[in-house]
């Protein structure tokens, strides 16, 4: 292993004020020629290029879904508003929900996974590189099929598409069929991706990386993959049944021919609730990486965090009917689903306590990434607590299908998943691009997002408690909803400005960011062992792993060998760029 001290030699000329961050360089790699041809992106099977394409594509969908949300918020900003008709509003709510779930949160996690799973386990690519490329192109195709409905008739039965509303009788347009094909295409994409992650993590780890030394993000992606493999075939079957009901004369969900609309609800939520954990577990994984690095401490309770991930996944398959407490279901069954939903609160609580304990007595470096990670915990706690309210089924009879639920799952998915995704972006951007993002703009973006987010969604709890159902496109004055709605709409635009600031940061730093070097954060895991961005083969040498924090071990070894020690815990320069 070659060991040299920084600054790292960079081929391109650098402006003087953009000096590289001083750091130990553990491992030099041969730089391949940089190809700029677009066809290389189309033909690539490199997990890093595919990962970047995933991230860029899903961010485009994130922006589309965000614009749809803003249009709905504008419509609801005042009573009896006529900006949108009921038809347009239902289309937008279907597009927004479907986009955010199937085209943003699930695949963005696949994007991070694609880029970082091989790097973090010390592999040179995914197990099945061509399958990996297929996953990406299927996702793109699904997105195109779905968004092409904008030029015809977008679906309007919601992302949950309950029949009979989604049946041919009540939704005759092809938009509903496009929705079904989106589920099929993104489903196959995610399923292939999941199989690939599973095979990669099980088979391709660096020497010495036993199950007890796998980074927590990798644990999260492994469990994410298993949950996808369990849940996706069910929704695939359900939408196929809906398709045959619509066009080929079957009656699975048709009450007039002894079919049952409740069957759809069971099938859909048997997928739908694991899906929630599919979206949030990788976020938990990102947080479990970011917090120890910036606390300069080992993660508190590694085994408990890894085990809680697995327990959450197991319980996630047993809670689906808590989405259906108002459906015709016997009380004893409701009781079961209340208890199973409670149980899932325990491992989730364990994770939160472990993260806080990791921060405790650390030497916390307040980077943008850590801001988003801490913001994630602060917001997710609220989503977790309101989840307990909703699990108490008699209370749910009041809260279900109201804005309280909208607030709850946006605290989990927008405040939770999205804040963890942003934390991951600020953390890994230097690895992906070789450049650091602006920390000051990042922190400003965090505060604007945090304030905007809470303004948008906290009052929605009150809206639900005041009796406003979800999914209504307008309302009358005098119900006590007007003020809350106006606050929520203003908050949504503030949130959008905050997200915009990070997007500006992402794009602007590509050219203007400081040179990151291989390990700007003093990371714990192997992706920081190679250069930024990593070469096509990732590593010329794959080190032997001796703990959960291999990069920390290597850094110590290099420091001992060279006699150069870095300040630990002090105010690093990157903390106030």
């Amino acid at each position, binding site marked *: 292993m070659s060991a040299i001290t920084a600054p790292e030699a960079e081929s391109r000329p650098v402006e003087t004020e953009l000096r590289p961050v001083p750091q130990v360089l553990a491992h030099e790699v041969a730089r391949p020629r940089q190809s700029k041809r677009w066809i290389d992106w189309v033909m690539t099977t490199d997990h890093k290029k595919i990962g970047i394409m995933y991230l860029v594509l899903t961010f485009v969908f994130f922006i589309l879904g965000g614009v749809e949300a803003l249009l709905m918020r504008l419509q609801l900003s005042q009573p009896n508003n006529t900006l949108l008709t009921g038809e347009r509003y239902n289309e937008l709510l279907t597009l927004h929900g479907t986009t955010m779930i199937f085209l943003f949160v699930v695949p963005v996690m696949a994007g991070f996974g694609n880029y970082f799973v091989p790097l973090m386990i010390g592999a040179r690519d995914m197990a099945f590189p061509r399958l990996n490329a297929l996953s990406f192109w299927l996702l793109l195709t699904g997105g195109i099929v779905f968004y092409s409905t904008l030029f015809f008739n977008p679906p309007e039965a919601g992302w949950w598409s309950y029949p009979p509303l989604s049946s041919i009788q009540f939704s005759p347009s092809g938009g509903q069929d496009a929705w079904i094909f989106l589920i099929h295409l993104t489903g196959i994409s995610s399923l292939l991706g999941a199989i690939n992650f599973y095979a990669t993590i099980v088979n391709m780890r660096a020497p010495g990386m036993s199950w007890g030394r796998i980074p927590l993000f990798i644990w999260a992606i492994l469990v994410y993959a298993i949950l996808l493999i369990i849940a996706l075939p069910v929704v695939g079957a359900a939408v196929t049944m809906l398709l045959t009901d619509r066009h080929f004369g079957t009656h699975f969900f048709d009450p007039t021919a002894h079919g049952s609309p409740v069957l759809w609800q069971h099938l859909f939520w048997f997928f739908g609730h694991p899906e929630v954990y599919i979206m949030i577990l990788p976020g938990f994984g990102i947080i479990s990486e970011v917090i120890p690095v910036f606390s300069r401490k080992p993660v508190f309770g590694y085994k408990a965090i890894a085990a809680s991930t697995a327990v959450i996944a197991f319980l996630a398959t047993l809670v689906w009917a808590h989405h259906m407490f108002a459906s015709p279901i016997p009380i004893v069954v409701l009781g079961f689903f209340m208890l199973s939903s409670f149980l899932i*609160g325990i491992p989730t609580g364990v994770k939160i306590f472990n993260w806080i304990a990791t921060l405790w007595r650390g*030497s916390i470096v307040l980077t943008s990434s850590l801001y988003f990670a801490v913001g994630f915990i602060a917001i997710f706690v609220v989503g977790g607590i309101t989840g307990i309210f909703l699990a108490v089924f008699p209370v749910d009879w009041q809260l279900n299908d109201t804005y309280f639920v909208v607030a709850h799952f946006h605290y989990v998915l927008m405040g939770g998943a999205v804040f963890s995704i942003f934390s991951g972006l600020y953390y890994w951007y230097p690895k992906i691009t070789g450049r650091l993002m602006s920390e000051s703009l990042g922190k400003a973006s965090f505060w604007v997002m945090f304030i905007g987010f809470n303004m948008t969604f906290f009052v929605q709890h009150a809206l639900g*408690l005041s009796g406003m159902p979800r999914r209504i496109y307008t309302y009358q004055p005098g119900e006590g909803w007007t003020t809350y709605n106006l606050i929520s709409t203003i908050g949504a635009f503030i949130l959008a400005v905050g997200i915009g600031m990070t997007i500006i940061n992402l794009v602007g730093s590509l050219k203007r960011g400081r040179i990151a070097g291989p390990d700007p954060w003093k990371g714990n895991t192997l992706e920081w062992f190679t250069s930024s961005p990593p070469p096509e083969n990732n590593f010329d040498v794959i080190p032997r792993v001796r703990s959960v924090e291999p990069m920390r071990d290597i850094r110590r070894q290099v420091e001992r060998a060279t006699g150069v020690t870095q300040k630990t815990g002090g105010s690093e320069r990157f903390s106030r760029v």
Partner: protein
Amino acid sequence: MLVEPSAALANFFTPKSGGSPNANEIDSLYKIVLYMAAVVFVFVEGALLYSVIRFRAKKSRVAAQIHGNTPLEIGWTVAAALILVVITVVTFVKLPSIINPPNSGANATFLSASVNEPTPPNGKKLTICVQGRQFIWRYVYGNGCLNGAFAAKLPYSYTEMYVPARTTVILDIQSSDVIHSWWVPSLGGKVDAVPGYTTYTWFKADKVGALYHGQCAQLCGRQHAFMIAQVKVLSPSGYQQWLSSQSQAINRANQQVSQLRSILSASGNL
């Protein structure tokens, strides 16, 4: 009007209630959960904020290299479980008062007997069938409303339901097209109206003259936002008067229709 100061802070922390015992019981159950949640919220957010501020990186600070603490970890796992056990016990204690209809008041109207519906202990109840359809609620009053409502010529109304005070009202809820959800917040939780199924709920309103608002809570199509439900509480005698005047109005309308029909068919226009 953009701001409604009087109504602005209504139900900020708690659900609507006050119309019926089941809504009140849900409200009190909710509050028990809320108090426990508030304690957990303050404790967790406080610990988070404290550790981020207290343990910021300084020159003199060296991070403590702690890998875990098994007793502590077991401790907080058990603590979380205990909170949930408490909520479970409270829920099952409260449950009967939420799902089982109580007896009607002494001078209430009504009787009915049907096997599938929930029934108060003394059997005195008023059955009203609620039928959801795009985009209106239809109510049929009285025993036998599920089957043979036409034969029995039961009175019916749309959107606005009229009920006698202090009477246990049982709702038999159905849908004739897509899924709807019956919900009048002050009178209790929501119940889906699913085609092919009959679902039940109840309420018992005491305040004569009160008008409770609600609306369909499950997306049912483009005009879902206008599928309003209202419940007007009348005195028992007022309810009887309303029933007979409603029946007469229905009869008159039926007669007019049949007259029109005979005129049209006589003139060959039908």
